[in-house]
């Protein structure tokens, strides 16, 4: 796509602009290092073409954005951020939120050190693998619910789990939006979405979802690390999952519904996966009610997994006083949220992108107001993940958004082929990483080389001023679906 390559221009440090052209309503802006630019070229700029498509959607507010973990997705690129003005016909797009509504990451801190972990890591791995079901194929179900309980959970979010004894009030205080999106409407979900959600609460899923026990190995921002209780050599737990089959079904149902509704709203699309409806239309409002319900399921899911993690540590021989597992923060990277930007309410879609509000923002828990919102950026299972904080630069330039991960660079088919010649579990063990996985397939598809080096992604974020590095976390134990 040399035409597209010729259209983008440098617009700041690690920042590039694609000026409005064709059907674009606004400019598009993306963040990249030279290495990331090379990877965009390798995939023939497929993800930038998707970003250009996003810029054609009605009611979009400049610019359409992509974070440096950008890669080819469906509809939106992964790493995409787009804000819409509902009062000016701005749309909501289920494909712009994604199938895994409110997929996100939760970081737990602990009172343990690497030395405490080492002698019990195998036992802990077994306990975590047994107690946290991965989904299809798992013999165990974490939490049994009746449909009326599920409906309440869809409104109450993570708080429903805490009320059932699976956590503490402080867990909620350190969860984005308190672990509950307002406006959830369980009646906006299909019976099939409810059916898919019922057996899956407290399960991890597969693909890029994981549960990882890590050790803090580098601190870059002492004050922020201290506010989060992160010190070199201490143990953390990162949980990455979302709304499971319930959220997937909500997305499928509403993409279908919106495709049927497109002529009614006079919307033409360059890609049907961008199916959209005005946010203030009956269709748009119905989706937002269903999306909030699915988001609440995701918050509750991570809360229930947190309870299972605490139980697993205790099974491995750590008393609650020993492990001291507590929520540092829980944040989403697939959703659409109504937020105030530039003095007006905008519906900000983040598809594989993280909210990254700056110091002082009223939506932050008091403990994090002096430092900015914690942002967790998982890498791959062999290298490292990062903790960042949100900045004024992000608020100014990216609707308060930053990256969400490393971003893939290798297709799943290619990764599977590569893995046939190697013993990945042995290679990870040699790096000091214990793995428990439901099948070898996921480990193969998620091999470290399938991802960009997340260090390059967070360095790009840091250099562009849309996030600031706080700490680096090294994996010691990985559970995969």
């Amino acid at each position, binding site marked *: 796509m040399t035409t597209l390559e010729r259209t983008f221009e440098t617009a700041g440090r690690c920042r590039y602009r694609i000026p409005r052209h064709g059907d674009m309503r606004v400019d598009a802006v993306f963040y990249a290092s030279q290495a990331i630019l090379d990877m965009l070229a390798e995939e023939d700029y497929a993800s930038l073409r998707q970003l250009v498509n996003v810029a054609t959607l009605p009611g979009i507010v400049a610019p359409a954005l992509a974070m440096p973990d950008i890669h080819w997705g469906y509809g939106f690129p992964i790493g995409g951020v787009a804000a819409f003005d509902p009062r000016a016909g701005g749309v909501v797009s289920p494909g712009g939120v994604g199938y895994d509504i409110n997929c996100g990451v939760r970081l737990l801190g602990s009172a343990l050190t690497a030395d405490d972990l080492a002698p019990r890591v195998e036992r802990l791995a077994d306990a975590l693998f047994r107690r946290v079901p991965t989904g299809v194929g798992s013999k165990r179900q974490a939490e049994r619910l009746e449909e009326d309980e599920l409906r309440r959970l869809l409104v109450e979010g993570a708080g429903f789990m805490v009320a059932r004894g699976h956590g503490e009030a402080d867990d909620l205080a350190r969860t984005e939006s308190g672990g509950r999106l307002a406006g959830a409407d369980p009646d906006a979900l299909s019976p099939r979405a409810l059916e*898919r959600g019922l057996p899956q609460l407290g399960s991890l*899923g*597969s*693909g890029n979802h994981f549960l990882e026990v890590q050790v803090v190995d580098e601190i870059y921002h002492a004050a922020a690390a201290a506010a989060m209780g992160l010190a070199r050599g201490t143990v953390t737990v990162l949980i990455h999952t979302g709304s499971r089959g319930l959220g997937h079904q909500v997305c499928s149902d509403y993409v279908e519904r919106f495709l049927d509704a497109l002529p009614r709203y006079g919307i033409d699309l360059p890609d049907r996966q961008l199916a959209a409806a005005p946010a203030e239309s009956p269709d748009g409002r119905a989706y937002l009610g269903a999306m909030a319900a699915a988001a609440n399921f995701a918050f509750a899911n991570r809360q229930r997994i947190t309870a299972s993690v605490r139980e697993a540590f205790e099974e491995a021989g750590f008393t609650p006083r020993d492990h001291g597992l507590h929520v540092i923060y829980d944040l989403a990277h697939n959703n659409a949220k109504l937020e105030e930007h530039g003095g007006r309410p905008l519906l900000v879609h983040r598809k594989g992108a993280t909210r990254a509000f700056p110091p002082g923002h009223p939506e932050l828990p008091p403990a994090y107001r002096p430092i900015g919102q914690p942002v967790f950026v998982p890498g791959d299972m062999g290298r490292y993940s990062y903790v960042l904080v949100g900045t004024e630069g992000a608020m100014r330039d990216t609707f308060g958004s930053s990256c969400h991960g490393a971003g893939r660079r290798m297709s799943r088919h290619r990764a599977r082929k590569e893995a046939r010649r190697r013993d990945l579990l042995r290679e990870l063990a040699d790096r000091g990483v214990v793995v428990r996985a439901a099948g070898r397939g996921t480990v193969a598809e998620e091999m470290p080389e399938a991802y960009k080096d997340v260090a390059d992604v967070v360095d790009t974020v840091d250099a562009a001023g849309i996030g600031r590095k706080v700490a680096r976390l090294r994996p010691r134990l990985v559970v995969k679906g």
Partner: protein
Amino acid sequence: MPATRTRPLEHTGDIGFELSAPDLETLFDAARRVLLAELMASPPEGNHRGDRDEAVLQLEAPAADRLLVRWLDELLYLVQTRQRVPVGARLRVVPPALDGAAWQLQAQLTTAPLDPQAHGWRGEVKGATYHDLQLARGRAGWRARVILDV
């Protein structure tokens, strides 16, 4: 008669495939097989012995390509929620008789229970997407291109 072919697509984030077949019924059935091969390393075959069930499925959509997405989503639901693997399918695709009417798929499915261990479960698929979805008739039959979210 043109052969039925399937080919994986190199997609960075998700999984995609291309199909070609002499008719829509064969193409939809090839899509079923490709989907099962993505979900499990050793999906059970049509000659699977043991617990088998028969089910009738009727789907409709305003266009043939949307019918393909609905078919794949239905199969995902069957496997991932109902834990039944559609090991065989007798299919009939009915084009709309009148302008504005729906495409229909009538499927008689044979299903077997999912055994993740025995079938080499690879991992869940979230849904069939409309991104870059293609289904068109050419001189040599039908061709399709589908991307799945994993």
